[in-house]
């Protein structure tokens, strides 16, 4: 019984430590000059768990790398853009989370946040991954201001290492 409890605790710890956003690449419209990019950089770096931020003014690409075990939410990334008067378009993300739902309607729950996405896409044996912690790479479509998309179109999905 004691062994089972220890194993459960270890499993939960492992799960929590690996459930998060690893990388967020957002295309941002409207940045014309250095202070625009600097403002985004400062806002993104202010989010707890953000390791590195790169902003390319000519492509509008904002690349955010996150530390393991972070609990940053997508809402915070969007807010970092919106508060500076810009608009975020599609975002490419790499995230770890628990795969729930059904094989026909899988859902990714990014633990440590309230973020939950209905997954669409092809490839990967979704049915065999249900209930497991997975790493998903995919695209979050643009959502209206103040909102986060509820669907993630995945390019790849695999059990987290």
């Amino acid at each position, binding site marked *: 019984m004691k062994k089972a409890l220890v194993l459960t605790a270890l499993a939960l710890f492992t799960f929590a430590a690996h459930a998060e956003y690893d990388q967020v690449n957002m*295309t*941002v*419209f*409207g*940045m*014309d*000059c*250095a*202070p*625009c*990019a*600097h*403002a985004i*950089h*400062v*806002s993104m*770096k*202010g*989010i707890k768990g953000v390791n590195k931020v790169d*902003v*390319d*003014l*000519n*492509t*509008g690409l904002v690349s955010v790398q996150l530390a393991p075990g972070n*609990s*940053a*939410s997508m*809402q*915070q990334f969007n*807010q*970092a853009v*919106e*508060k*500076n*008067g*810009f*608009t975020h378009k599609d975002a490419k993300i790499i995230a770890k989370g628990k795969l729930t739902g059904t094989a026909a309607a899988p859902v990714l729950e990014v633990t440590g*946040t*309230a*973020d939950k996405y209905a997954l669409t896409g092809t490839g990967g044996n979704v049915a065999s991954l249900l209930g497991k912690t997975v790493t998903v790479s995919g695209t979050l479509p643009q959502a209206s201001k103040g909102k986060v998309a509820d669907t993630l179109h995945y390019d790849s999905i695999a059990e987290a290492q």
Partner: protein
Amino acid sequence: MKQLAILACVLALTASARASDHGPVFGYATPVNSQGEFSFDTGLFGRHGTGGTQFSTGSQIGYGLTPHLTFTAFIPAMFGSGSLPETRVFPGGEWSAGASWRFFHSVTQVGKRLEATGSLALVLPGPQPDSGILSGLTRAPGIAGTVAAGLASRSQYFWVGGGYTGFFEKAGSRRPDTTTWSTVYGFRPARLRRGYNQWDYRGLIEFTGEHTGDLRMHDAAVPDSRSTSLWLGPSVLAIFKDVAIEGGIQGPLYRNVSTSVYGRESIRFALNVSYLKFSSRTSTH
């Protein structure tokens, strides 16, 4: 004392008519502060003519309450002697406080936006010229309103704007109501469209115009006190992350100004330094 009380109230509410930091040094533009951003501007502005030379310095503090609403307060100082017409395009010896609202904002592409901003400010008399016809005037507060619209992009900038300042009458005197307008074109060459952690330069051509109405003293309009002038000149803006330095010079294109009342103004120049303190705060989820 009453004026100080009014000023304190106004500074608590805050506002200004001019755009700061990102924009042109003479003309009107649309940028406002980010949410939570403080901006600090300080500048040296000069006007020279046959009536003498006037310098003014001004410091402006701005705070972005939302991404589209900025409150500002302008603190003036003026020195030098000169008999020159009233101006509102150029920062002068007035305290002002108000708000700028970016009421239209369309983000259409990477690096490009169309926007329009309106400002409303209360203007209070501050340090005044120590010579010339305006120096002997009993002054009263005024209200200033401006509107600017335009395009900002990685390569080009274009803004048009206009404003009106009306002053209240006091002891039979009233400062000239002033109508101003400006057109600004800016360009950043391809080789200067670099990363944000390098110096960012752009060149601008600024056209400004100003019409001042009758000056009233002792309950009567002063003859020949109206003026109209048009100005044109280049400016350069250099920005590194959160610091901006800008300088510009303007010469007259057209002057309909009484030389006996105001002299003949021949040159305007400005140097402005800005520091932008961006907020890193986002809400937790």
